[in-house]
């Protein structure tokens, strides 16, 4: 598909080459074809010729910075549901390793077919959605500064899917089976005693405020997972809970000067405040 530059002009500077291809009028082409001019063209090529050189990297980082590996792993770790896992994984392999005839590894297709998706049971679909995101995503907001994670409550969750996100079909599945998905997440968290970032993302995607009491009980039993507090705040933000929107926490995490790296310092008082506020939000929602 992609034709190569003729070898005789392969080292021609881009500017000159583009111009030769696009803007040469017939007069110049005639001149160019003259044998006597070839010497001058070669001289021009030499003038713009390349010099072989290769970059070398020499790491001399003297930083004392070290990432909180354990904390970071907790923030990015996903929970893998057990429902039909082997079957779903096998199905994913059929798309991930499909060789494109034109040389692209997977052709940009990251989804199983509609027929395959339809053939999965609800629980298997849940597994598929929780372990595989179909849509491409730019991963530009990578909070690298992941030290002292246990001392921070971040404004945003990390992502478990790296350069991918859920497609409309996957988001529709979550919303269309909201009650069932909430039950499956709850069941899985109780069993594994942890709530992966994919589960948290699903709760947000579904705006599952009904899970607030469960999330609070999870926080009490899993002290190291500060992102569960982030999840509560994101649910209150999503619901535009007035008390939270007017709070200092909101201003600091989501106000005019905030960004995806903003955080609150973790302490017991902040944890209690977030949980109590979320409980009030839950009560308000249930009364409506």
């Amino acid at each position: 598909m992609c034709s190569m530059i003729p070898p005789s002009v392969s080292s021609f500077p881009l500017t000159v080459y583009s111009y030769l291809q696009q803007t040469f009028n017939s007069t110049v082409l005639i001149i160019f074809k003259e044998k006597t001019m070839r010497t001058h063209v070669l001289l021009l090529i030499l003038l713009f010729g390349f010099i072989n050189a290769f970059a070398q990297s020499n790491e001399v980082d003297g930083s004392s910075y070290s990432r909180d590996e354990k904390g970071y792993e907790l923030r990015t770790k996903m929970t893998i549901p057990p429902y039909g896992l082997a079957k779903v994984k096998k199905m994913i392999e059929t798309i991930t390793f499909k060789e494109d005839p034109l040389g692209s590894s997977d052709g940009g297709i990251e989804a199983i077919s509609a027929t395959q998706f339809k053939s999965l049971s609800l629980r298997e679909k849940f597994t598929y959605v929780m372990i595989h995101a179909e849509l491409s995503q730019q991963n530009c907001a990578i909070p690298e500064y992941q030290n002292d994670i246990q001392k921070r409550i971040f404004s945003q969750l990390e992502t478990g899917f790296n350069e991918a996100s859920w497609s409309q079909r996957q988001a529709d599945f979550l919303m269309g089976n909201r009650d069932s998905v909430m039950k499956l997440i709850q069941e899985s968290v109780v069993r594994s005693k942890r709530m992966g970032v994919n589960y948290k993302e699903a709760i947000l995607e579904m705006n599952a405020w009904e899970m607030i009491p469960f999330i609070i009980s999870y926080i009490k039993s899993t002290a190291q997972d500060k992102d569960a507090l982030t999840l509560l705040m994101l649910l209150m933000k999503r619901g535009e809970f007035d008390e939270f929107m007017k709070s200092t926490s909101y201003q600091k995490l989501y106000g005019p000067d905030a960004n995806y790296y903003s955080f609150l310092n973790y302490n017991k008082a902040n944890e209690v405040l977030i949980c109590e506020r979320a409980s009030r939000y839950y009560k308000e929602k249930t009364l409506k």
Partner: protein
Amino acid sequence: MIKNFWILLLGMVICTSHSFAQVQRFIDIEAGTYILGDTLSLDNPRRAVTLSHFSIAETELTNEAFAAFVASTDYITLAERFHNAMVFEPGLAEFRWLQDSTAYWRFPNGTSRGGIEDKMNHPVTCISYRDALAYCEWAGVRLPSLEEWEVASRAGSQTKYFEGVELDNIMDYANIWHGRNHLVADTTDGFLYTSPVKTFKANPWGLYDVYGNVFEFCEGSLVRDQGRKVAHARGGSWWCSKNSCASFNSQYIGSVNPNASFSNLGLRVAKKK
């Protein structure tokens, strides 16, 4: 013979003068040891890097240049083949993009949002990393390495931005998003999406649009890739805002599927000096 030589040169000047904007200028970067990275970064730690001479384009690659490539080769981009391009329209939540089967480089945000007919001097977008490589192969150039890009963008600075730039005045140097979020269209600087290259101020070494307009594909891999096939892009784009990822600087390195096409992803070419 000498007379013919001057006729050739004159012909070249005449032919290029009316379309000077399409000619790609390169900035020479001297060989040397440069300090790159940041002390708090794991993927891009503070370090000294020794580079050989290289040249890097003063602007991002334009639609006009990419059109010449397509006209010459009949190349079909991945977005055209697989209809998997990702586009943006105001109203989407942060970091949300839409898949649009009609989008490709001639209609970077889909046919319903207009084409590039009057935007030939804007950076080409909606091309994947693999498309970028195909262009480079044809044009006899290459993508800059992650290190080369950073050296050229910093222009001698050892901070997050090149000299003269701070978060408060970066809008003078970069086509970025000024709104608090992406729910409402932002045309504060006159551009919703891309702008013509060289609209904003250059860095001290003469590179334009380093922190805005479109993210630029680079060559290289990071620890966080963990062996996966990942493309990396640097700089910033018209989508980026200080309230989202604030990723428009010389330090951060973005990641994307090498087959994915986004309307804020393009390239800036490089070559050996």
